[in-house]
């Protein structure tokens, strides 16, 4: 579904990604693992067209990604970055706002379903009325996970989404994503809970063999 071919990206004359290759079949689960500052987040940024690689190409559904089809890719992605303060208002406002995007026009607000998901991730029902900015990091992560699970996207780009959760919740979230067969998941994480799961392809990044695909 997605293929990175020989992607390199320099930042001030230093390679943060060097000859990175990765094939992501539909429905697969991939973990990008490794210490921070080695360009893991850059992989998402390049994929989503936020920045252009210095070398290499990315293919989406066999087609080279360009300024035109990047918009088709973004319609299918859920992008949960490290920065959590990306939303404003009550949780309900946030859901309404995201549902107002044209890409989500066929999805209608289903309170029961959302509450069920939120309960599953141990959020209280009244969280919908709460001001998102006042919530803790772990609550924000669980809210974003619930909302985007509800949206049922095709591709999930998850950047450290389990970082503020306790051990049990980390496992619960990871198992949840792994259980969704139709979702294509690429996750960036330092959490070793991801490592011990079956059915996940682990790509270790860092050092000189930066981005080698095994």
């Amino acid at each position, binding site marked *: 579904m997605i293929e990175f071919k020989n992607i390199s990206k320099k930042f001030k004359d230093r390679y943060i990604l060097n000859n990175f290759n990765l094939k992501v079949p539909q429905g697969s689960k991939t973990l990008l693992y490794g210490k921070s500052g080695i360009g893991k987040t850059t992989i998402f*940024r390049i994929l989503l*067209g936020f920045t252009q690689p210095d070398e290499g190409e990315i293919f989406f559904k066999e087609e080279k990604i360009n*300024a035109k089809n990047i918009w088709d890719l*973004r319609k299918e992605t859920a*992008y949960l970055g490290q920065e959590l*303060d990306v939303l404003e208002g009550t949780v309900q406002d946030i859901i309404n706002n995201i549902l107002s995007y*044209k890409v989500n026009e066929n999805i209608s607000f289903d309170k029961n379903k959302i509450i069920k998901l939120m309960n599953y991730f141990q959020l209280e029902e009244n969280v919908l009325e709460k001001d998102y900015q006042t919530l803790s990091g772990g609550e924000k992560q669980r809210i974003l996970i619930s909302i985007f699970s509800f949206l049922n996207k095709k591709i999930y780009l998850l950047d450290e989404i389990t970082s503020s959760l306790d051990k049990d919740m980390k496992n619960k979230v990871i198992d949840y994503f792994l259980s969704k067969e139709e979702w294509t998941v690429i996750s960036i994480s330092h959490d070793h809970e991801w490592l011990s799961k079956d059915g996940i392809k682990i790509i270790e990044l860092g050092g000189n063999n930066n981005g080698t695909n095994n």
Partner: protein
Amino acid sequence: MEPTTDISLLSLLTVYLLLFVPIIISYLFNLKITKETIISTVRMTVQLFIMSIILIYLFRFDNKWINMGWLTFMISFAAFRVVGSSDLNVRRFIWPIFLSLFISNFLAIFYFNFVILRLDNAFTVRYFVIIGGMLLGNALNGNIIGIRNFYKDILRNNERYLFALGNGATVYEAVLPYFRNALITALKPTIASMATIGIVSLPGMMTGQILGGSPPQTAIKYQIAIMIAILMSVSLSVTLTIFFTMRSSFNEYGILKEDVFKS
């Protein structure tokens, strides 16, 4: 009513004596604004003297085309002020800002003169240039705040913007929160001053009219009209500027171009 008492040149000199107060205070507390104060005072004096000479001639000719030309000149000057004070890239922004200021100001002044005042000669300098200038001057700050905030906010909250794009939003959907904020911050000062006008402040236009001999009941009606026209003009020009500039400020991937701001 008798005409306003003139200030003789000698009296005008005594006005400048008042400057000693801020200058002494600046010296005492080391505010380092003495030089700036003097430069600004000189600029103000020169600009207003020139303006008075221009106005004398504008009144003498009172020609429709000259008046429109003069207002257009003032609008282009204002456009440079907006771009300059917003730290935006002049080449990229000057035309869209000029165009949106032009449209919103001409619309406001036409409505004012044709619909509200129902003048026989709406282009006469007394109404066209004077009220036009008044509207423009008051709309200027709103425009500066609105346009600067829009682009600065996207840059400052870049992650929030990218979050929306990465989740399938179009550029328009992704900028909507910034657009709202820009308009709110641009309009708030005018809305707030409308609420206190007459209690804590007597606005300049009204004061001027009363000094000039107009009855207060006429002056307040003009003031009401001008405030509402300003609100209309600011909201329209900020909206238009953002729409006119958006197309060229984002690249094909929907990312804000780096040269939007002055380097």
